[in-house]
């Protein structure tokens, strides 16, 4: 029993989108789609879940806020351990809330700093993007103007190929993978 990977290449994102819908309706499972730019509605067409990037950002933001808060409290107010609250220009640094007006800017910056950076890191991490990683795209043209659909078919692939052709794939390459 042998498996095949089909690489269907399209010239236009709209045609690709149609064909994706077509195939999905025929319950043909699409392994992956490579495109030079984001295509609207593709994620729905492929039935992806909503990504949770925004939520992570929010969490990181909260983290940043708390970090900033603690930092400021420790340094300017607490007098615990090595912290060293001083009388600076007679500002009332007796309690956090008395001094908060001058803390607002830094609290905000900390929030953004954490949210921004940590989320971006998460993004790279989840996408396994890191300096020196090599591309996974089977065809270099997918970053230029070609749109590539990757499917795995078992047994005969004729009707799939037919389907792809009919939905406008400009070319179809295949690759055998023998498994035990």
């Amino acid at each position, binding site marked *: 029993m042998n498996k095949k990977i089909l690489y269907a290449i399209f010239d236009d994102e709209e045609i690709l989108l149609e064909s994706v819908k077509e195939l999905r309706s025929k319950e043909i499972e699409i392994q992956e789609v490579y495109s030079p730019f984001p295509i609207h509605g593709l994620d729905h067409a492929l039935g992806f879940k909503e990504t949770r990037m925004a939520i992570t950002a929010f969490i990181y933001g909260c983290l940043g806020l708390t970090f900033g808060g603690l930092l400021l409290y420790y340094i300017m107010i607490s007098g615990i351990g090595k912290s060293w609250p001083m009388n600076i220009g007679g500002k009332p640094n007796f309690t956090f809330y008395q001094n908060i007006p001058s803390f607002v800017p830094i609290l905000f910056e900390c929030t953004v700093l954490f949210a921004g950076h940590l989320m971006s890191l998460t993004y790279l991490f989840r996408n396994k993007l890191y*300096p020196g990683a090599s591309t996974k795209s089977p065809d270099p043209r997918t970053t230029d103007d070609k749109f590539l659909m990757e499917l795995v078919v078992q047994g005969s692939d004729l009707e799939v190929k037919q389907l792809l052709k009919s939905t406008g794939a400009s070319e179809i390459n295949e690759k055998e993978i023998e498994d035990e």
Partner: protein
Amino acid sequence: MMRSIYSYLILTLAILFTSFNVAFSQEAVDSLAVQQGKEIFKTNCVSCHSIGKNALIGPGLEGVANKRKKEWLKKWINSSSDFIASGDPDAIAIYEEWNKVAMTSFYFEDEDFEALYAYLKNPPIQEDIVSADLTLAEDQGVRTSTKLMFIALFLLMLVYLLTSLKNKLKESLGQETETIPDTLLSQFNLFVSENRNVVFASFACLIVVLKFSFDTMIGVGVYSQYQPEQPIAFSHKVHAGENGVDCNYCHSSARKSKHSGIPSANVCMNCHTYINEGKITGTTEIAKIYDAVGFDPNTRSYIEGYEQKPIKWVRIHNLPDLSYFNHSQHVVAGKIECQTCHGPIEEMDVVYQHAELTMGWCVDCHRTTEVAMEGNEYYTELHDQLKEKYKGEKITVDKIGGIECAKCHY
């Protein structure tokens, strides 16, 4: 007067009931008079007399109070030369015994003399001295380095074992073996070929570098354990420790000035005019002092018109110029022991820097040390106010502004 009667009492009692002797003399030690006496003794006598048996410039004074009459002592101390002139046999005897040098005169007021006498009567059982554990500090230095060495050794051995094992297998398979360098090289290439590895390796390096630079930044200006060679091998152990010379005798300005003061050569000469042989180094080191001030130990006299040479001691505790430190502040006003900062000086043959002398070190102490306010009129009003302010809390130095910048930086 009362005191002297008291001490007489003790004496008689001591003779009568030897069994109680200890207990009573103990009590006497605690008595104010003896404490005063001790002070007087330290500031005036220690440089020539030990309270024990061993003789310095003058005889050891153990049991002198029992040997001599009080009046006799008084006369002798007030002006030994006159006393000798007066023809007192004992006096002359001593004069003869101690190569015809009379003792210098001290004009004590009565109560002071009483105190001194009381002290001589009740010599301390033993001097207790503050000692800090410095071996520990040294160990750490050693430990870390040795650790690293062991680890390195272990790894090397591991490499060797593995390669040899590998070679054994290869031999058995009939492949040509490889030397250790080859292995390492091939392994390295293998490692590098994978981008991921390179990235993580570099990350690791980065972290190490950061850590290192951070440590160095923290460590800048910390010179504890600094122990330079001195031009004269002067031993604090011998002087302060064994002979129990009071720190204040040589470093006299520590109680008056910001500087503890390196004693001027004439202070050394006070004793070394007559002591010209040391315990450890014999005459060699002491000769250096003579050389400096131009003193002829044989004729026991200063050489006229001698071109004196300054002694260039190497400074050990170098506080940066930007911070003001005052010894008298700490010793007198703060009532801090020398050893608190300088460590067990009286155990050091060669002195080293005990404390970090970083700002952190200063400030931490100021955060924890209580202010010696009791019985100091300067503080009376302030003390009440502060008690008001910090109910019950102990009033540490920082509470009276002891960690404010301009207390040390101006």
